């Protein structure tokens, strides 16, 4: 592209939005650094798309403000916000060729700032190269696959040299294989172009793999913001722990630095808290151990193939739900066998 787009920081301050009686956002604050790729992750109804639409200017916050490079976005028209938006359903203009779709934003400019036709053609070609669809100028959207359409949509958004790029579940309508390919491709593209990018997803794997930082939303509130490693390894709340990957929940009593289940200590609690709490353990953080003094005792109910490893369901007395336990050793326990489980890593959330 001709001029390197100027990426700006986006600051969201205490944004709230109500729809009728339903509070979709309850005071969310988030700062996105220039050139950063941030994932807004949350289950459906968590407010992530609402937040994206506030930033885009397609909806107004009831309270709070959004600043682009220090300027209140409310004072900017949609055109002056210079936002590149990619929708889940592509939203290409079906009656236009790929080239006309991409050129739309440039041709929509007032005459004074509109580039000449030859320059527009050149830029369309360059953008098609960038999204790896060279030579498809004359096609219509109906002649493209879903993945190709979404890349055209991205090229169209990039054509206006956006200051911020917003992606609303961009890969949601694509099948798993294409989604994975596009994920890696988008990451590489972002490293190349360096736009401040915010993308919405409900797919935690996508968020963790793609983003510089992940912001996890739940019920209109921001639960945690951090790098993928930080949010995965050190979840701030029980919700984050449960939402990012699988986790078994074990209700425990916290006493003397220990998490106690069914009268015996099962995990070192670290902080000197007391009272009731919940211990979250990921399936691969169990170790089969019959002799261990700290641990849980249970009976293997089923053993199933789970991707690269096998997984056992272990019934533990006093737990309503069976534990999902990854079998990391070469020898799998037999169904019906009584086993001890040592917890190698877990997260304790007091009072939950």
């Amino acid at each position: 592209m001709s001029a390197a787009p100027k990426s700006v920081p986006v600051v969201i301050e205490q944004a709230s939005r109500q729809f009728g009686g339903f509070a979709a956002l309850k005071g969310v604050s988030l700062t996105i650094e220039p050139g950063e790729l941030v994932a807004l992750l949350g289950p459906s109804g968590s407010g992530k798309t609402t937040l994206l639409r506030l930033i885009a200017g397609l909806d107004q916050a009831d309270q709070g403000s959004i600043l682009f490079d220090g300027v209140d976005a409310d004072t900017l028209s949609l055109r002056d916000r210079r936002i590149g938006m990619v929708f889940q359903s592509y939203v290409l203009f079906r009656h236009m060729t790929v080239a006309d779709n991409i050129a739309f934003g440039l041709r929509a400019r007032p005459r004074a700032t509109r580039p000449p036709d030859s320059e527009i053609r050149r830029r369309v070609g360059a953008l098609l190269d960038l999204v790896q669809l060279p030579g498809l100028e004359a096609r219509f959207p109906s002649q493209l696959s879903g993945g190709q359409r979404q890349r055209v949509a991205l090229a169209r958004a990039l054509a206006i040299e956006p200051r911020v790029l917003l992606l609303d579940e961009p890969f949601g309508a694509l099948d798993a294989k294409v989604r994975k390919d596009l994920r890696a491709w988008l990451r590489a593209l972002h490293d190349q172009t360096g736009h401040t990018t915010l993308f919405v997803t409900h797919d935690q794997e996508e968020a963790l793999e793609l983003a510089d930082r992940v912001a996890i939303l739940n019920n209109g509130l921001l639960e945690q913001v951090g790098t993928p490693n930080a949010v995965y390894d050190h979840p701030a709340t029980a919700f984050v722990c449960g939402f990012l990957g699988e986790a078994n929940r074990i209700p425990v009593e916290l006493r003397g630095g220990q998490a106690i289940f069914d009268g015996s200590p099962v995990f070192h609690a670290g902080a000197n808290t007391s009272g009731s709490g919940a211990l979250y353990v990921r399936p691969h953080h169990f170790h089969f151990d019959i002799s261990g003094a700290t641990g849980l005792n249970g009976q293997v109910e089923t053993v199933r193939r789970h991707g690269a490893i096998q997984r056992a369901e272990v019934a533990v007395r006093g737990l309503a739900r069976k534990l999902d336990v990854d079998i990391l050793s070469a020898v799998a326990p037999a169904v019906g066998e009584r086993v001890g489980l040592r917890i190698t890593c877990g997260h304790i959330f007091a009072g939950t």
Partner: protein
Amino acid sequence: MPGFGLGFGIIVTALSLVVLIPLAALVLKAAGAGPEEIWALATSPRVLSALRISFGLALLAAAVNVVFGLIIAWVLVRYDFLGRRIIDAAVDLPFALPTAVAGIALAALYAPNGWIGALLAPLGVKVGYTPAGILMALIFIGLPFVVRTVQPVLAEMEAELEEAAALLGASRWKTITGVILPPVLPAVLTGFTLAFARAVGEYGSVIFIAGNIPMVSEIAPLLIVIRLEQFDYAGAAVIGVVMLLLSFILILGLNLLQAALRRRLGHV
């Protein structure tokens, strides 16, 4: 394709019974008049004037219906408001109403002593018993065609299209003309064609409000009825055939235009 023979046979039979044979009979009846007589009748000032009124006003009414039909369809699709369903149902009333009832109602409203006509009379505007009255009646009966052909196309359109265009910097005008209208244009043209075809042949609602003054507000179908009442079947058939030819040429042209439009818009 299996079943083609049977299907084709049924279509040809049905089409023959309902359309082709009656039309052939019409042409045959007209031919009974002799070439000079046909030409004299078809080019007589009164017939030419009636044809001009019928076709001119039908085209004009269809054009007006495109504007209002588009707006009505847009409002019905895009906005949710109290009474939307009632208005949606009311759009079909011109379909269901006997046309004579519509004509009498319009005449009662727009006659110089009617509710609306009385208001317009002091301004020097006369609608009832003038070509303007004919236009009113033709707009009334043609409106549902445009609404009902455009509505499903608009409903299928993603609301996000407008948002995408606005974020790309398009003005409201550019969004409407460049993004929203082009995909509905083929449907608009279909609605226009249907409204026009309906208006050209309309009789019942028009005669009550037209005033039926020869050379001023007399429509071609009325001339046919007058000939029939005088037992001049050949004359009636001649005017009928002329109308048929003109309609066929116009509708064929509109259909070709529509096909070209669809191709250009990428609906392969």
